[in-house]
């Protein structure tokens, strides 16, 4: 058992701050690293210490193992938390930490390698008796093989890159005559994206639900699951809204899938926090999809219903402590939903929207949590992920949670950049979502209702009035010949020069 005293967080943005918060609660010192674009980022200011690690592009900073190890040594950190993304699933980095005598807060390099390769992961799960999506057992070597598989499992099928992720190197095949061109296209995309053109085939599930189980395992062979997260609301193959419990779930299925998730973790001698992702079809058949060997973006909804601080558990496990609870001690209480707030334009194909944040009003009060990192006046860098915040709510029931999310999204205002907030408010008012009747095609299927509504004439009249008054005010300021409106508050703050006169 080696006590963790100082942790370097090899990450940025909301997850770096999330981790530092728990470290502060545990009296552990925190070390930030930052690229040139992040000198004034909040994670630098929140940490006890901060070190510069290179230019803005992540392959010159957050992905450079040597620089991060250097910063750890300079600061005397005895552990590194990788967060998610960047080096979090990089086996070489995990190995290097161990070699340098620094605790890597995550699983062993061997497990990262095994679960990082989709084909190896699939094989490991099949050996452990866990059902996987029917398809090839390894990468395919000829087109004939593809046709043989189609005979077995039927169309449609999905061709996937072995080294893939994020929707790249994937091709859906609905008809037999599309096979040849689809395989070629997937291979070429896989090669250019990942430097590896291996592909494999899976049965395509027509109405799939993305449901994942949170796992915690200590170094002494104890493994528990912390129930499911429903992550089917996605856009561009990325999650947007998650909830727990899943509206699709039954107590029996939960128990069965939970056991399978624990078996999956055991099969690879997993240590730490991890996630087993499943595809579930409308008949409640479930198939192993992949394992994420790190903290997930959506971990807070699990924290909220179970009451367990997952980062605290990661740290305790990395120190060699035994889990302080068993499966029987865990239960789900109430319902939790997360909306990821992206700086993007949902009304324009989710195009990212970098730029300067003008003003933020955080939603507060009962049952609301936000994990964000941007502040007023902050220039969102173009180099990194467009997710700027996560809004998590809890309610006694799913109905209460949805209503609370609606209220919190109503309160949440981030101006200056476009965000997903208003579109997510429309999701919370969508009949299918409210009924829990959705799969991963939800956004496509409900496009019409989720689009920006018509302009409300009465409200837009108020916007016109505000604009008009601001215009008159500026005009008069430049002419300097009109009696000023009496100010509501004096003008020391925003726009001390001229915009604050009403």
């Amino acid at each position, binding site marked *: 058992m080696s006590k963790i005293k100082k942790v370097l967080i090899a990450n940025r943005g909301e997850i770096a701050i999330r981790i530092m918060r728990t470290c502060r609660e545990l009296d552990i010192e925190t070390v930030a690293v930052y690229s040139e674009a992040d000198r004034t980022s909040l994670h630098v200011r929140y940490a006890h210490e901060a070190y510069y690690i290179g230019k803005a592009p992540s392959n010159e900073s957050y992905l450079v193992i040597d620089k991060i190890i250097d910063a750890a040594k300079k600061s005397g950190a005895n552990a590194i938390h990788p967060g998610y993304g960047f080096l979090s699933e990089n086996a070489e980095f995990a190995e290097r930490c161990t070699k340098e005598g620094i605790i890597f807060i995550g699983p062993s390099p061997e497990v990262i390698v095994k679960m990082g390769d989709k084909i190896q992961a699939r094989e490991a799960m099949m050996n452990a008796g866990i059902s996987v999506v029917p398809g090839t057992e390894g990468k395919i070597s000829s087109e004939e093989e593809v046709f043989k598989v189609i005979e077995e499992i039927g169309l449609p099928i999905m061709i996937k890159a072995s080294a893939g992720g994020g929707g790249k190197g994937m091709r859906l095949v609905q008809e037999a005559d599309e096979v040849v061109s689809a395989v070629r296209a997937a291979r070429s995309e896989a090669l250019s994206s990942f430097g590896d053109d291996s592909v494999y085939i899976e049965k395509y599930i027509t109405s799939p639900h993305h449901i994942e189980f949170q796992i915690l395992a200590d170094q002494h062979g104890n493994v528990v699951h912390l129930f499911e997260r429903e992550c089917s609301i996605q856009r*561009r193959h990325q999650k947007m809204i998650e909830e727990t419990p899943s509206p699709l779930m039954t107590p029996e299925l939960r128990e069965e899938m939970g056991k399978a998730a624990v078996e999956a973790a055991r099969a690879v001698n997993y240590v730490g926090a991890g996630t087993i992702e499943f595809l579930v079809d409308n008949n409640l058949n479930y198939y192993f999809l992949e394992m994420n060997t790190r903290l997930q973006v959506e971990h807070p909804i699990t924290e909220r219903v179970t009451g367990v601080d997952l980062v605290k558990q990661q740290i305790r496990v990395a120190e060699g402590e035994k889990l302080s609870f068993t499966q029987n001690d865990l239960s789900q209480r109430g319902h939790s939903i997360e909306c990821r707030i992206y700086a993007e334009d949902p009304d324009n194909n989710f195009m990212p929207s*970098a730029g300067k944040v003008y*003003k933020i009003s955080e939603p507060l009060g009962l049952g609301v949590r936000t994990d964000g990192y941007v502040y007023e006046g902050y220039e969102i860098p173009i180099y990194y992920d467009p997710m700027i915040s996560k809004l998590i709510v809890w309610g006694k029931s799913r109905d209460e949670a949805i209503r609370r999310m609606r209220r919190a999204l109503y309160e949440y205002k981030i101006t200056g950049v476009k965000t997903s907030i208003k579109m997510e408010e429309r999701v919370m008012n969508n009949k299918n979502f409210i009924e829990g009747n959705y799969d991963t095609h939800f956004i496509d299927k409900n496009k019409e209702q989720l689009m920006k509504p018509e302009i409300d004439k009465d*409200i837009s009249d108020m*916007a016109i*009035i*505000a604009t008009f008054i601001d215009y008159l005010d500026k005009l008069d300021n430049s002419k300097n010949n009109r009696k000023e409106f009496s100010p509501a508050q004096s003008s020391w703050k925003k726009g001390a020069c001229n915009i604050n006169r009403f």
Partner: protein
Amino acid sequence: MAVEIKVGERVAWVDLISQDENILEIEVDGKVYNVDLMHTADGTFSILEGGRSHNIELVPRDEPKKYTAYTLYQSYDLEVIDAEARYLMNRGGNGFDSGENTISSPMPGKVVKVLVNEGDKVKEGETVIIISAMKMESEYKAPKDGIVKKVNVKNDDTIDGNQILIELELTE
């Protein structure tokens, strides 16, 4: 002083009739509103109209007289059209880009690949340049058939928002 204000497709005619400190009488498209309007210290316009409480946050856009207004329900793009603006518009195109013969990126980013050279013929809808921003690649397409007149950027260049990347000569 009356001006026109554009909101989406609508052009509204606005006039200030009278003012008593923060109590205003304002006419919008012939409808007269009596509003209690305060600009609070955190930059929001708080408008009370017939008892209803409205909160509007105005964010100036890059060009003068253009704003985005955020209400708690929605956001609107607005533009004041006064005498000066009308004059500029009537002079025609001056400073106003029709957008038909240029390709520009609405946000800062990095050029992944320029797919055309000066002098190339391009067809409407053909991808001419790929831009990356915030981990996402976007393909920009030719708005009309034409010939590439000028390419202002090269691969790996960092670009600003609204920068003109490629100019076309349209072929009728």
